């Protein structure tokens, strides 16, 4: 990765060559989504609605929360039809 110190170092436009997933925003979280697999129907509505693309699908087909990126907004729990996601207070 190049480091920029002065005007002369900069590219013309503010172009970043690393992806934004290096910025870990999970520490902002107050509530953590926890998926109860016994209630989950694998409909993936949570995956579709997550505004931060913080939900991945594990090897068994269940949604799993990427806690480095999840800000705890609770949209997944709100949208989940079988109410299989609980928002648990962070310690």
């Amino acid at each position, binding site marked *: 990765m190049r480091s*920029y110190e002065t005007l002369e170092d*900069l*590219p*013309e*436009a*503010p*172009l*970043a060559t690393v*992806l934004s997933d290096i910025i870990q925003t999970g520490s902002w979280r107050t509530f953590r989504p926890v998926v109860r697999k016994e209630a989950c129907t694998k409909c993936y509505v949570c995956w579709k609605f997550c505004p931060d693309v913080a939900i991945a699908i594990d090897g068994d087909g269940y949604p799993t929360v990427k806690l480095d990126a999840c800000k705890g907004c609770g949209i997944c729990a709100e949208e989940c039809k079988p109410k299989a996601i609980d928002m648990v207070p962070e310690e």
Partner: protein
Amino acid sequence: MVQAVISGNYAQAYAAKLARTQVVAAYPITPQTTIIEKIAEFVASGQMDAQYVKVESEHSAMAACISASALGARTYTASSSQGLLLMHELLHWASGARAPIVMGIANRSVAPPLSIWTDHKDTISQRDTGWIQMYAESGQEVIDSVLVAFRVAEHEDVLLPAMVAEDAFYLTHTYEPVDIPTQDQVDRFLPPRKPSSGFRPGLANRYGTFIGPELHMEFQRKVAEGMERVPRVFREAEEEYERITGRNHGGPMPTYRTEDADAVLVTMGTAATTARSVVDVLRKHGKKVGLAKIRVFRPWPVPEVRALGADVDRIGVLDRSFTFGASGAAHTEFAAAMYGSPHRPLVRDFVAGLGGRDLTPPMFTQMFESLLSSEKEEVSWVGLKRRPEVTVRG
């Protein structure tokens, strides 16, 4: 060269087509709509090989244009008034991303009260967004300015977006003879854009990244430097355009009969046509008056303004918009440029023609006569309708 009788809006559309624009994303608004309708017709009939992106708002139109332009596509859009204001946030993004989009503007007043007629408030409100701004007087100037704008905006020393403005209805919907350059002429003047250096298939990069106080200022300076290089690049582009088409509209601020003038009026847009005819009439009556026309408002043509101010003692600036709490924008800029000069002409502001109010020859005569006789550095609203003062007879 083909001579055709077309509207100012069609001149915009023909220029976008001749430039071989690759992406157009636009949203209709009166009186701009016929620009993008004509382009849609060109694309639908196969005369223009462009991707035409239909969007749900001007905000989205500009967002799509920024993405296309950042990838290296030649990109054009058009807007006006409230639509341009809705784009405002994205106009800053376009210049900051160094996306050389060219945008046609139908200069229209801003509500309230709602009005669709000529006024420069819409574009003047965008003067600090980092866009090059040009104002046209005729259909011919529209087509030539749009082509020059592409070349200047895309120049590697500039890389900034540019808007080419035309007065609502006086120009957008007025049909007049226009020499349309041939495709071969335009191809020689405007070669294809170079591919983007930042984006290519298989490489994940992103624009608009978060930056802290340690380098934000330096990125602002980069935009400032791009803008500072415009006058040279613009001059070279116009010289090249003249070599190919035989036409040159005279730089950022052409003048008319100013050599020995006692008073000069500075205008923008279509007002120049009427003002020029009044100059000729007043000259016949022995009044030494002249005209200057701001074609490029951003970057502000400081050397040209100072040269005019060094030769002429009385200058009136006609503003077709008003900056509440100060004076008209062109007046403010003109006076500021003269402050750094050893010459201090009288610089007055005439605010007129707002919201499509016609600027008539008697109004220009009144402005010139007032300019020749008064020493007051005041802002005058010309043609304002007032209740006649009641005089008490003794």
